[in-house]
């Protein structure tokens, strides 16, 4: 099975950090075997909960909630657009935290988490931009404007895509992860710009509606489905990232096992290694 130790890998084998992790306190919780076992139990529940929240939320948003008094049915784009915008930002905060853990503590799973997070974050940001464009055309009268909000979100999208590309651009995976972590942390400067662009400068995009839950600028009959959709999409986002990290850990184990087996076969070609 994949969980077995490598009998042929000596102490001098240059293994992947995941397979030769030291065990200080922080790293004990990053043991890849323990991570796989713990998450294997969670995964079916994570998928189930995501769908159990997202599907009713989507029905609530698309079928039950009222139309807006001036935007009409077009307002329903909001139920995808706003959660995607929130996830693009929250996901990037997660990427920054993973990058700090990777750079400072050399946490063995943090590099993998960052690497697997960026394609999902890029898709969320792309969906935010696409739905915003589809919404802007009928309401504002334009697909796109170079105002501070839209431009800064476009920069956020390029940061996500750049991180995904950079971490995969090196032959040596560790160097790629390092370069990606530095890029991710430099890009954090863009997060407050995205968030406050609508307050600092005048923009075509309107300011935030949901700032204080006590008196949001949105009627409760629309706020309810919006928050439900945000919860559903967030669960789905987290589940997708978790599934990707699990797959990445397993991929590396398979590679390591194959490498060890090839080495063993080289060393002793006469005796075949049993599977």
């Amino acid at each position, binding site marked *: 099975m994949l969980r077995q130790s490598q009998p042929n890998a000596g102490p001098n084998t240059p293994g992947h950090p995941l397979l030769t992790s030291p065990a200080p306190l922080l790293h004990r919780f990053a043991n890849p075997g323990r991570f796989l076992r713990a998450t294997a139990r969670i995964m079916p529940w994570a998928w189930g909960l995501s769908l159990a929240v997202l599907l009713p939320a989507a029905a609530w948003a698309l079928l039950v909630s009222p139309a807006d008094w001036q935007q009409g049915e077009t307002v329903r784009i*909001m139920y995808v657009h706003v959660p995607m915008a929130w996830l693009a930002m929250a996901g990037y905060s997660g990427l920054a935290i993973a990058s700090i853990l990777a750079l400072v503590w050399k946490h063995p799973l943090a590099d993998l988490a960052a690497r697997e997070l960026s394609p999902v974050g890029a898709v969320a940001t792309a969906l935010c931009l696409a739905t915003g464009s589809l919404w802007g055309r009928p309401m504002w*009268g334009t697909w796109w404007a170079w105002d501070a909000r839209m431009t800064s979100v476009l920069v956020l999208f390029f940061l996500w895509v750049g991180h995904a590309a950079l971490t995969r651009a090196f032959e040596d995976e560790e160097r790629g992860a390092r370069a990606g972590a530095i890029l991710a942390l430099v890009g954090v400067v863009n997060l407050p710009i995205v968030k406050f662009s609508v307050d600092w400068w005048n923009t075509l995009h*309107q300011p935030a509606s949901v700032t204080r839950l006590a008196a949001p600028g949105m009627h409760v*009959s*629309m706020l309810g489905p919006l928050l439900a959709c945000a919860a559903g999409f967030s669960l789905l986002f987290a589940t997708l990232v978790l599934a990707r990290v699990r797959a990445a850990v397993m991929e590396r184990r398979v590679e390591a096992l194959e490498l060890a087996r090839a080495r063993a076969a080289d060393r002793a070609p006469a005796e075949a290694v049993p599977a």
Partner: protein
Amino acid sequence: MSATTTTSRRGLGVAASRRRRRMLVLLLCALGIGAAAALALTAFRDNLVFFRSPSDIVSMASPDERAFRLGGLVEAGSVVRDGTEVRFRVTDGANAVAVFYRGVLPDLFREGQGVVTLGRMRPDGTFAASEVLARHDETYMPPEVMDALKRSGHWNPEQGAAPPAREWNTLEPAGGTGR
């Protein structure tokens, strides 16, 4: 590095001081980048605005020759349509600028609505717009709630933006208009 298998006291101490150094370097970089970004944004502040208000234009010494964007609310009662030509005034409460536009208006265009227009000042002080975009505010409400606000005299959409949310959007359904 992750390949350290030495668990001696000395090895752990070196690892800890390295970690502290990495943290310090990261913190210094964050400070530097943050300061650089803040300075750059302050320097470019004037170029980051998407549109100028009527008050900005009135206070301008000489009318700008180049095209720029003018934004504000469409003044109540100022819209005059003549075929595909439309004249209206854009106001920010203090000052107003007359706008002339020929073309298709966005669906959201109405009196009291926020607009952003792109164009040039003409010598007679009117703004010849080549593009009119609607700008909607951050309030979302079903038609019944808007009707209730209008009937109760709380808000007339033609007079401008909606009143502060806490006046109409408590978490209790207001006057049977909520769901």
